[in-house]
């Protein structure tokens, strides 16, 4: 069918559309949309806190800030660490990337562990009124994102052992790193909302 076109001529250079390289655009659009779920939860938390006559469950006056504060410091610093991992990759220093990247994973895992310890020491549950539900919903939903981030980092780490995998593009690493910054920023907002605004 196409061979019949031999006598058809084009008087200008045909245009070109990029077939790939859309992943980052798509991922950023997705993250913007994802942030709205958190935003909805934050608004819900604030509205319930302001309008509810009794906020904390019986016998509780507030939540301890010390443990979450350590967690916050760890998570926020991991955002800087991951930046250096990316730097190493750009400089084609693969082992530097792997080590720093793995340190970021460890910091993320420590955060999840800290969250687990905090949860197991709390005296209220998911069913303890609007606050109990909101607390576990927000920290749990964020925790799921942290775990997803760690798993994605693990995937990127494994992929770095494939020969020549990171020669051309580092799109996966860049996206995961962006996701990690996103998780970090959400945590800072969440920390302010739940732990500082008591």
């Amino acid at each position, binding site marked *: 069918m196409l061979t019949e076109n031999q006598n*058809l001529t084009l008087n200008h250079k*045909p245009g*070109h559309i990029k077939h790939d390289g859309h992943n980052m655009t*798509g991922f950023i659009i997705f993250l913007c*949309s994802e942030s709205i779920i958190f935003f909805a939860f934050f608004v819900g938390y604030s509205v319930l806190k302001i309008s509810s006559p009794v906020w904390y469950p019986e016998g509780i006056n507030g939540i301890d800030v010390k443990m979450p504060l350590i967690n916050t410091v760890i998570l926020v610093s991991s955002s800087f660490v991951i930046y250096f991992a990316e730097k190493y990759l750009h400089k084609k220093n693969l082992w530097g990337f792997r080590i720093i990247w793995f340190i970021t994973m460890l910091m993320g895992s420590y955060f999840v562990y800290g969250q687990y310890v905090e949860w197991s020491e709390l005296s209220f549950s998911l069913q303890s009124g609007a606050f109990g539900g909101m607390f576990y919903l927000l920290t749990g939903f964020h925790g799921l994102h942290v775990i997803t981030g760690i798993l994605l980092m693990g995937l990127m780490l494994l992929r770095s052992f494939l020969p020549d995998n990171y020669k051309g593009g580092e799109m996966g690493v860049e996206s995961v790193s962006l996701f990690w910054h996103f998780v970090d920023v959400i945590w800072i907002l969440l920390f302010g909302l739940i732990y500082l605004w008591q």
Partner: protein
Amino acid sequence: MTIVNYDPRLVKSKNPYPKGPNDWKRFFSFNTDAKVIGIQYIVTALFFLLIGGLLAMLIRGELITPPSDLFDPTVYNGLYTMHGTIMLFLFLFPILSGLTNLLVPPMIGAPDMAFPKLNALAFWLVPVFSIILLLSFFVPGGPASSGWWSYPPISIQNPLGQIINGEMLWIIAISLSGISSIIGAVNFVTTIIRMRAPGMGFFKMPIFIWTVLAAQLLQLLGLPALTGGAIMLFFDLTFGTSFFRIEGGGDPVLFQHFFWFYSHPAVYVMVLPVFGIFSELFPVYSRKPLFGYKFVAVASFGITILSLVVWVHHMFYTGTPMWMRNLFMFTTMLIAVPTGVKVFAWIATLWGGNIRLTTPMLFCLGGLFNFIFGGITGVMLATVPVDIHVGNTYFVVAHFHYIIFNTIAFGIFAAIYHWFPKFTGKMFYEGLGKVHFALTFIGATLNWLPLHWAGLLGMPRRVASYDPEFAIWNVLASIGAFILGVASIPFILNMVSSWVRGKAAPPNPWKAIGLEWLLPSPPPHENFEEDIPTVLNEPYCYGLDKPFVEDEQFYIEKSLKEH
């Protein structure tokens, strides 16, 4: 001078055209071609239109007499809930995704969507959540019965105490539908931003592309709020949390905010592409340039922005403070400005045009007429005193259906007829199309026009039995609904028989301007492949001496040759 004699990728490919363009089996497979996915979406959605329509006729059958004699009121609650849910999430959203999938890549000159695999995934989620939703008919306690908006505390009662109940399946289905829509939206926005043909700046895009972009951005901004609300509702229903339970310190009105923050813009997600369809079709069938192209384009974004700040008008009578009512009355009325710009532009386009009354044009004109009517009742409903008077009556139902069916579904039918020859390669039967239009217009008007009176007189919505004084309006409405049911027969007959044995369609049967009309009918697998045209002007220069693309003659001859 380039000689186009082969497609380089075809020669290099191991398996050129693995499935030929006429292989019907690809419609039943995980195919990543946007044109296949588009048709998959449309056919699936039309199937659910039949199911939703069947439920509607059952509802109208119940309401043709004042007492509740056909169904138990409990069953009736399930019927209208499922009717609304199926029509919105299984018919309207998927069919618009289908049209968008078919039209966006060819209209902007792209070979396919930006993420073809995700695109296929988004489609295949539709049958999954459809089955989940339909299965809820068979669980103990029946399907969700709290209306399509699922307000707590009614929705979280779970009287039988079953873990798997209709409401739970409803929430899961809606959430999966949300995931599918978000995947679709990321895909559409990325495709439109990054894959336009050379020369196609934003102000040379077809209006349909503008409206799709506006609608899909609205999905991305609004839908996560509903997802958030749905997660909390799910927790309340299943895990005994108290987000929306007063007794645990929660707030049921909070859910209404989450719900309407998305579900009001959702109406614009559906109506914006239809505005795009009107803007595409009126110039073609009146042979005139679209009046005020730039204003119509920008007005789409005016609607997007305004529609995010109007949701409280659904809650004027649920304990909303007066200042909030006034504020949202004002923002709601502001929406009349960008929509007014569009209506004015369409009428100005039609004015003095050389109008051809083909089936798609008839559906467009009918849709525009109904939209003006539904828009006026919309402004009435935005007024706080009127809304408090007629809120939760059949006036709201009638207004809503004037927009959702008489405008949006009319526009969808117009689009299906208009682009049917392009994507199937067959012409449809004009006579059957006109019969379909006549039956649809008469049925729709008879169905919903009388219900305005029933509502103004105070007939509440969502009841199986009513006072005999409303009987006459309901008899008329039921007759209209049955005529609408009959109208589906010529439509199905037309679509099936034209596709199977219709006359072959030329590349440009309507003499329309647009990149998709420079392609053969049906377009090849990757549309323009490597010879993507350079766009010079917006696609509405009817009667003007302005070329649409560079080297137009080449593309016209090429499409004719491959035809």
